[in-house]
């Protein structure tokens, strides 16, 4: 009993500390001061009256949403003796592997700089600044010459690192045992099996209405769709994050999606003071420009650094020229600490369909990144981390489609080599946009990326007949090259709830 109370105190203290620095705290303080003028606030019952005022005016709901957001994003405080690196990643060998991987990336970047004789960063000369300002809205069409630059790394380089991940305390012998895993990932992380996934994703079951299935043209909208839209509108009026997250597990109506995502991610409707390097007045709407603007700003946004507290990765450090080793002159590079890889912009592209104001698009992307996407390219033992997703995918295939798995392995087509690129990009660029957004609805609804591994397995299950006939990796890739016609929700539902296990 005492232990639970002290655990709860620790959680409360952590959330209070986080919120104290936020905009919401300042707003609540201002509101509290302002409401002292109101006649219903009496001195004898000041505390109760202010609390009542907050409840009626909707500020309590905003605070509830902020607390809910913190609970979703930040891991529970670990043991008081645990050092900060333990919160980033509890397993020592994974921390070391992430450290080595980062060092490789840094070396690669440094050697590129040295080869091309360019500094990592320098201030733009005045002329170039003016040019950038003028061309801010057309940046996608007039790129600097990037032909000499290589991408820092591609997903397949990262996959090789994950394949070589080993726990030094684990029996990695060649002899077959009851736990031999025939896939590429050889670390014994805990992953869910289908019964556990069914429990976890219960709202995707056969008897629950889904957008992506029960809103197809053959189904009369009175059966599910109309009511679901009505409930969605109600959720938005209530402005309740937790309710929105529960609601979106059954999918979001297209018209409500932008607002629902913003509510779940607790994005305020006021434009935030992002450190933009240029103005963003009237622009010509082209995605390429958007991507460029968003990613440029993202790389300079130091508030992103906060997520490294729970990310196993660490931001690369550098020193102001001439001040090597002097801690007062240390800065992070890039300023947000995130070195992008080949295909990084695919995390942003689907959001361009939902948000047209640049500051909203930016905030949604940033929040999606620090909640979910960072886990797809760092080495950690987290259940939503890419290592766990790869292991979950391989285990599902090996357990529930053993013949297919064995066949593909025999012909030198390890399934993960094909599905890795899908999962690393959260399927962006592989699925049709409307299907992708239905998938990302569920990522938000369940606050987990495990659905990506389940979908990858479901895709293999769907094309199993064709895959059993191929005799090479190239042929297997060809069978799975085009996912643009797939409907994700029926695939997931059948794989989880309708396959005989």
């Amino acid at each position, binding site marked *: 009993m005492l232990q639970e109370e002290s655990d709860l105190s620790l959680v409360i203290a952590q959330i209070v500390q986080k919120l104290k620095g936020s905009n919401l705290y300042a707003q609540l303080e201002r509101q509290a001061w302002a409401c002292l003028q109101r006649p219903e606030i009496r001195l004898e019952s000041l505390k109760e009256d202010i609390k009542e005022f907050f409840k009626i005016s909707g500020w309590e709901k905003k605070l509830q949403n902020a607390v809910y957001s913190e609970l979703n994003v930040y891991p529970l405080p*670990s043991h008081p003796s645990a050092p900060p690196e333990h919160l980033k990643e509890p397993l020592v060998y994974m921390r070391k592997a992430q450290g080595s991987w980062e060092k490789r990336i840094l070396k690669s970047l440094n050697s590129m700089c040295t080869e091309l004789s360019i500094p990592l960063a320098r201030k733009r000369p005045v002329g170039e600044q003016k040019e950038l300002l003028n061309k801010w809205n057309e940046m996608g069409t007039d790129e600097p010459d990037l032909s000499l630059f290589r991408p820092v790394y591609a997903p397949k380089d990262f996959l090789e690192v994950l394949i070589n991940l080993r726990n030094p305390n684990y029996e990695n012998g060649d002899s077959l045992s009851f736990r031999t895993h025939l896939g590429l990932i050889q670390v014994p992380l805990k992953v869910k099996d289908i019964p556990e996934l069914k429990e976890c994703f219960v709202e995707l079951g056969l008897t629950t209405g889904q957008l992506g299935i029960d809103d197809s043209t053959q189904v009369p909208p009175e059966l599910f769709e109309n009511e679901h839209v009505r409930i969605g509108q109600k959720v938005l009026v209530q402005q309740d994050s937790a309710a929105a997250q529960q609601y979106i597990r059954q999918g979001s109506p297209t018209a409500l999606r932008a607002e629902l995502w913003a509510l779940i991610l607790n994005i305020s409707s006021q434009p935030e003071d992002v450190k933009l390097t240029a103005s963003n007045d009237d622009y010509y709407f082209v995605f390429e420009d958007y991507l460029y603007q968003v990613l440029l700003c993202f790389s300079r946004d130091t508030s992103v650094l906060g997520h490294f507290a729970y990310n196993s990765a660490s931001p690369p450090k550098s020193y102001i020229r001439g001040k090597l080793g002097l801690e007062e002159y240390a800065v*992070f590079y890039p300023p947000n600490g995130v070195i992008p890889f080949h295909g990084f912009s695919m995390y942003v592209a689907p959001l361009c369909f939902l948000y047209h104001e640049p500051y909203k698009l930016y905030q949604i992307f940033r929040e999606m990144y620090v909640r979910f996407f960072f886990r797809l390219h760092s080495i950690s033992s987290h259940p939503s981390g890419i290592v766990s997703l790869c292991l979950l995918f391989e285990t599902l295939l090996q357990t529930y489609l053993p013949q297919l798995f064995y066949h593909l392995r025999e012909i030198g087509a390890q399934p993960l080599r094909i599905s890795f690129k899908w999962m690393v990009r959260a399927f962006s660029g592989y699925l049709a946009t409307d299907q992708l957004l239905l998938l990302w609805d569920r990522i938000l609804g369940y606050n987990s990326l495990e659905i990506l591994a389940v979908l990858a397995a479901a895709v293999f299950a769907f094309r199993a007949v064709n895959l059993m006939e191929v005799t090479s990796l190239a042929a297997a890739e060809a069978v799975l090259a085009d996912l643009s016609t797939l409907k994700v929700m029926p695939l997931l539902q059948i794989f989880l709830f309708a396959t005989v296990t």
Partner: protein
Amino acid sequence: MSGLLVPCHVKSTVALKVGDMRTSQGRPDVLVVDVTFPNVAPFELQEIMFKNYYTAFLSICVPQHTPLHTPSKWVTCLRDYCLMPDPHSEEGAQEYVSLFKHQMLCDMTRVLELRLILQQPSPLWLSFTVEEAQIYQQGPKSPSLTFPKWLSHPVSNEQPVPSLEGLPDPRVSSEVQQIWALTEMFRASHSYTRMGRFDMDGCYDLNLLSYT
């Protein structure tokens, strides 16, 4: 981490096996670690803290007080406490753990010695142990950390004193004090965003990345 740290001596682990250790296959799945407290009088144990390393289950025994010259009997005060929900997988394998007095099955007021019994039934791990073991005894009571008597001694039959109208509940204020202390503790801890200045006085000229 409440209370005072008691200096202890952790003896080397002893593996328990059935039969001849030289000829039998496989690794031991039960280890025993004795923790003694040289030069310390019997004390009231408050907390045991350690870092796990692939131990699945933990039992703890203490010697029972017996008259002198008779061999002491060991009494189990913690039985098969689960540290790893799935012994075959990594969950809980390297976690920091605290065990408190109220979780023990027997009286911990006069502890002389502790015997930790570590179990790892899975054959997949090469070794297992517990590290950085620290034992704490009852420390001096600090105002912000004590709970009112009726909360920490629930066996008593007396009714709690009804609070007078309008006065704040004293229990709430002590809990709030505790939470406030924790808040200050978090504020002092390391944060990336504090170093996250964009540039140094307008200068962001960087040559290469640092490897340290």
